[in-house]
């Protein structure tokens, strides 16, 4: 069921909505076509699912299309994804060819119908080859941490990126010296979605019972896809250090995204590693089980996000919105969300993460204060309404020059 903007009023205030309506007047009637590679799983699909109906409500003709690709294509794009995050990947010339072939096929079949074509992430990037026959404005939205990308993949993508009118990145350190304008827009969470709305205690308890979790034992949780870059094995290492002093349980929960063939392998390895420890619960939750994820986050004493690289880390914003104390790696967009010792604790190692988790479990008042500050920070900066506003501003920037624009 779609939510309406009016429903956000009690959360963000009348004034913010009023401003959004005024701004949207300037973009009314424009058509914006979003294109990405998957309709389910992962943060991008999640944001688009919520964003499209709200843009429509504001009078923008927003639509969403998904490119097609086979198993080989997605294997290659996963390698690209890792390489752009700086991980060493074995990418053959054949892989580049497979990427281009699928790109070409999508170029032939994709119906383009927008004043603005909004392309998300590298998978559909080659659609820019249609720029000559589709005269609208083109934006490339990069959701990946490209602060230190593998140069081979980055140079391969550059000729495509350079032809867009603008690019959008999620954190300041992802910006590159490019010949096109690049904007900084953090993603957001939807406070009214199943994943973030308030839940009655009974619902939370039912979920805990379903997964055989101990209602009385403090719970440390990491919610994320099973992916090397999320470091689930590192989380287990940190948890076992904590466990030496505090009686607690660990939940590692996540779904599998359709564009992520690596996740099965990581899930198996995580299960093997956790097998001998009865206090570690590895839960592969089918994508779409948002209320369950919400319940797990709400039941947690500490939420961890020990990523090695992170585009933004929406799970951090989700936990902060629930006023949970967070321990997270100081990488990518996480540093925009967590100010160390103010709205959570940042760590750089397994030992550091363990120390921070222990501190929070043993000092509930301190943990509570960090969580509350975090919630306020998310309210001001990382809710969907702010994201909608930024997208409208990017659309407007495509048609106005200069640094001070009078609308």
């Amino acid at each position, binding site marked *: 069921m779609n939510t309406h903007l009016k429903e956000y009023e009690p959360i963000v205030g009348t*004034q913010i909505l009023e*401003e959004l309506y005024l701004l949207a007047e*300037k973009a009314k009637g424009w058509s914006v076509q979003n294109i990405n590679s998957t309709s389910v799983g992962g943060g991008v699909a999640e944001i688009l699912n919520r964003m499209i109906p709200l843009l429509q409500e504001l009078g923008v003709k927003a639509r969403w299309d998904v490119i097609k690709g086979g198993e080989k294509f997605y294997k290659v794009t996963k390698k690209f994804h890792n390489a752009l995050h700086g991980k060493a990947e074995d990418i053959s010339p054949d892989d580049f060819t497979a990427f281009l072939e699928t790109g070409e096929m999508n170029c032939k079949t994709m119906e383009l119908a927008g004043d603005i074509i909004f392309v998300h992430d590298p998978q559909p990037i080659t659609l820019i080859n249609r720029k000559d026959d589709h005269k609208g404005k083109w934006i490339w939205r990069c959701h990946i941490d490209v602060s230190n990308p593998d140069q081979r993949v980055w140079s391969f993508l550059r000729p495509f990126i350079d032809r867009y009118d603008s690019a959008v*990145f999620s954190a300041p350190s992802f*910006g590159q010296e490019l010949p096109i304008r*690049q904007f900084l827009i953090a993603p957001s969470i939807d406070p009214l979605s199943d994943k973030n709305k308030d839940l009655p205690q009974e619902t939370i308890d039912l979920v805990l019972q379903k997964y055989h979790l101990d209602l009385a034992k403090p719970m440390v949780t990491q919610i994320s896809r099973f992916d090397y870059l999320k470091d689930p094995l590192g989380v287990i290492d940190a948890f076992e250090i904590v466990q030496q002093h505090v009686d607690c349980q660990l939940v590692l929960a996540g779904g599998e995204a359709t564009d992520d063939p690596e996740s099965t392998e990581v899930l198996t390895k995580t299960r093997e590693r956790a097998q001998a420890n009865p206090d570690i619960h590895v839960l592969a939750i089918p994508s779409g089980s948002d209320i369950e994820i919400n319940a797990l986050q709400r039941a947690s004493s500490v939420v961890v996000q020990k990523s090695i690289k992170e585009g933004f880390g929406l799970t951090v914003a989700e936990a902060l919105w629930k006023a949970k104390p967070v321990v997270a790696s100081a990488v990518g967009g996480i540093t925009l969300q967590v100010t160390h010792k103010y709205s959570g604790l940042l760590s750089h190692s397994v030992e550091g993460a363990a120390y921070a988790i222990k501190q929070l479990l043993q000092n509930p008042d301190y943990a509570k204060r960090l969580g509350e500050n975090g919630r306020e920070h998310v309210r001001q900066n990382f809710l969907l309404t702010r994201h909608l506003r930024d997208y409208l*501003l990017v659309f407007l920037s495509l048609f106005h020059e200069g*640094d001070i624009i*009078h609308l």
Partner: protein
Amino acid sequence: MAQVEPIRTHEPFHFSTRLHLRELTGLRAKNLKELLEHIKTVPGSVIYHHTHHFLIQHQYLSPEPPNDFAYWVTEVLNERELGERLASINTCEFTTIRALRNKIAETIEQFLNQKRGKFLKEADEGREFHFIKSISFIFPTPYTASNLKEFVSVLKKITIHSIYFHIFEARLRLEKETNDFSLWLETALEEKNLAKQIARLDPYTHTLEGLRDKIIRLIEAKLGKK
């Protein structure tokens, strides 16, 4: 006793608002020398961003940190003395971004001269300073005021973005001599004293909500006297 109506003007105040988008420049600095080099050459909109965005982004905090340069120099380079000097630059004193930029550059330059020959601290990988430009979108709101009573009632309901625009952006970025509120109060309503009181506030040491409250209190005190 008949109530005295506040003076009505034929030049109503039109409330505008301002939203901003952050544009990445791709420029980064990992030590003071690079920081200074870029501060001297980047567009004014970059200096403006790094000395003002905290007002909107961290509005629930007490007014810290005062500017990104001071924060980075202190927290990342651990140059506390310079950090303090940069933090105490009084943005209120400057009526143009050009002048503010010169003061920041001069402060860093002096410090580097003192340090000549000494080891220059480098930021750890991933903690470089990233230069960002502020793009302002200014548009009218439906609210207007023709007297003090109407003015204060609008002040209570407009967004902090509108207050920000009329107080900060109008004065420094659009290079008017004072803020929009004081200008109108003085010229259209002949409220010289009130205009002066608002102009004298140091807006950089308030949160935006705190600033809103203060201005409302000043005007209500004046209305109470009438």
